[in-house]
Structure formats: structure tokens, C-alpha cells
């Protein structure tokens, strides 16, 4: 087991000691790989949108750009859902846990709360952005109650995660939220001022919501990388990566 964990190329190295039995550890590398790929995709959301625009809208007309952005929306929302579900999957470890991993309880609870909130946000975004629903983002009577319920659960999960966060994690979150507000307000003001001169279209509320989410995650990712000087990695955060077991 120790030899296996020493091998950096072995994807099974993330499976903690004592987790060799049962089907769950076999799924762990899958969860981990999915979480890593999807969180990178989510944090690179604006880049993804630009790429989609470049790939699918050579004509650079508003309708072509709109279609490309719509495609980016679905990829983005799907990535959010997958990332959140994978992190939740990683945080649940059925059965008796080895004693040495008890200390990661706080990190796991924070990750689970954040990931749960992200999944709920993705579901809500999915419903609101769905082109099959006429007048998306308008409060549809049939969807208002379940959506409100989902949002309430998401807020509770987020608050629970924030309650368990330490001071640096809270400062990163609040700075990212503040910067997102500043960026979005500036964009909104510039857009409104330039609208008559450049004949820009009206701001679509669902598009604005999608952009706000994208900008927030991009800023959050940059803050985490800059402040922690490490690539954000679910495995590292959840204490699964043996590289940080003992840093002296």
C-alpha cells in the first residue's frame, strides 16, 4: 500500500490507507478526476465562452455570438453539476473511517456544503436558462415553489459551509464576492452608457445571472490560486493527497 502511494503516476495514490475494501475506493479516482476536470472548466468559464464564440461564430453577428454563448452556458452548467456531485461523492465515506482521517472532517464538511450549494445553483440556473420554458427567469407558478425551496436549501448549505470555514477561507470568499459585485456593476454601467451609441441589445436577466456566476467562480479561483499559492485541487483540500501529509 505504501509503495503504491509513493508512485506519483498511480491514480490510486489518493485512496487513503485502510480504504482498500468495498466498492467506494474504486470510484474515488473517478470522482477525483471528474472533480478536477470540471472545477477547472468552471473556473475557466469566461475563457470557455470566448472559445465557443471563436469556434462557432465566425460571422461575428449578434445571433451567432448568442448561439455560441448559449452553448457555453450548457457546458458550464453541466460542468458545475458534475464538479459539485463529484466533490460530494468524494466527501462521503461510508463505513468506519481510519483515525488519521478524522481531522479532515472540517474540510470535508466545508467542501460538501459548498459543492451542494453549487449543485443547487446549477439546477436553478439550468431551469432558468432552459429555452424550453417560455419567458425564462420569469416566476412561473408551477416552478416558483420548488425553485424557492431549492434556493433555500442552497443558502442553508452555503451558510453552514461558511460557518465552518476558517478566517482565510472567509476572507477569500468575501473578497471574491466584493470584486464580483464591483466588476458586474462596472460592466452594467458601461453597457447602459454605451447602449444608445453602439446599438447594444437589452441585458437579458438570465444571461446576466449566468455571467455573474461565471465571473464569481473565475475570481474565486484566481483568489485561491494567488492567496494559497497552490492550484485549487479537491484532493488537496480534502486531505487526500499524500504529498502534503508532512511538509517540514
Amino acid at each position, binding site marked *: 500500500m505504501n509503495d503504491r502511494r509513493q508512485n506519483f503516476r498511480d491514480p490510486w495514490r489518493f485512496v487513503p490507507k485502510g480504504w482498500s475494501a468495498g466498492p467506494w475506493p474504486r470510484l474515488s479516482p473517478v470522482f477525483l478526476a471528474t472533480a478536477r476536470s470540471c472545477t477547472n472548466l468552471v473556473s475557466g468559464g469566461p475563457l470557455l465562452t470566448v472559445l465557443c464564440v471563436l469556434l462557432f461564430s465566425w460571422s461575428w453577428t449578434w445571433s451567432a455570438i448568442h448561439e455560441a454563448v448559449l452553448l457555453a452556458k450548457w457546458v458550464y452548467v453541466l460542468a458545475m453539476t458534475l464538479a459539485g456531485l463529484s466533490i460530494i461523492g468524494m466527501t462521503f465515506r461510508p463505513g468506519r473511517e481510519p483515525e488519521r482521517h478524522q481531522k479532515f472532517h472540517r474540510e470535508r464538511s466545508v467542501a460538501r456544503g459548498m459543492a451542494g450549494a453549487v449543485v443547487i445553483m446549477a439546477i436553478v440556473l439550468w431551469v432558468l436558462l432552459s429555452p424550453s420554458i417560455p419567458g425564462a427567469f420569469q416566476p412561473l407558478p408551477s416552478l416558483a415553489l420548488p425553485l424557492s425551496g431549492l434556493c433555500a436549501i442552497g443558502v442553508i448549505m452555503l451558510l453552514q459551509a461558511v460557518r465552518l470555514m476558517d*478566517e482565510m477561507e472567509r476572507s477569500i470568499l468575501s473578497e471574491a464576492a466584493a470584486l464580483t459585485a464591483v466588476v458586474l456593476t462596472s460592466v452594467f454601467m458601461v453597457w447602459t452608457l454605451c447602449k444608445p451609441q453602439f446599438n447594444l441589445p437589452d441585458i437579458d436577466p438570465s444571461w446576466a445571472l449566468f455571467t455573474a456566476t461565471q465571473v464569481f467562480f473565475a475570481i474565486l479561483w484566481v483568489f485561491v490560486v494567488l*492567496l*494559497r*499559492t*497552490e492550484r485549487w485541487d479537491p484532493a*488537496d483540500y480534502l*486531505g487526500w493527497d499524500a504529498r502534503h501529509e508532512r*511538509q517540514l
Partner: protein
Amino acid sequence: MKNRLRVLRAERNWSQAELAEALGVSRQTINAIEVEKYDPSLPLAFKMARLFGTRIEDIFSEADEDLGAPARA
């Protein structure tokens, strides 16, 4: 702000995770403090001083101050 956290931790042969657990913060926070990317709050600094059995000014100093030099009279 400069700090001697890594040295103090190494003297006691503690890992970042062990120190983080003792202080009730994440390992990433300890790493960020050690590489001087994050300055801890005053309560956390007091907690560190108590844990290492020393004064706050023996752990942290201003960037242009030398932590190894004896205090001037």
C-alpha cells in the same frame, strides 16, 4: 509581514496538517501564512504564540525587521 512559523514548526517536528489541527484552521491557511501570502488575525496570532510558548513579536515582524536580531534597549 515576515514570520518564523516554518522554523518553529520544524523545531517541534510538526507537519502543516498537525499545526493546522492544533490551531483549528485549514492546512492551506498554515501554508499561506508560512509563504507570507496571508497575515493571520490577531486572535489566531495569539493562539500561535500560546501554542509555541512565545510572544507574538517573536513569531511575526514587519517586513524590514530582522527576526533573528536581539531587541534594542
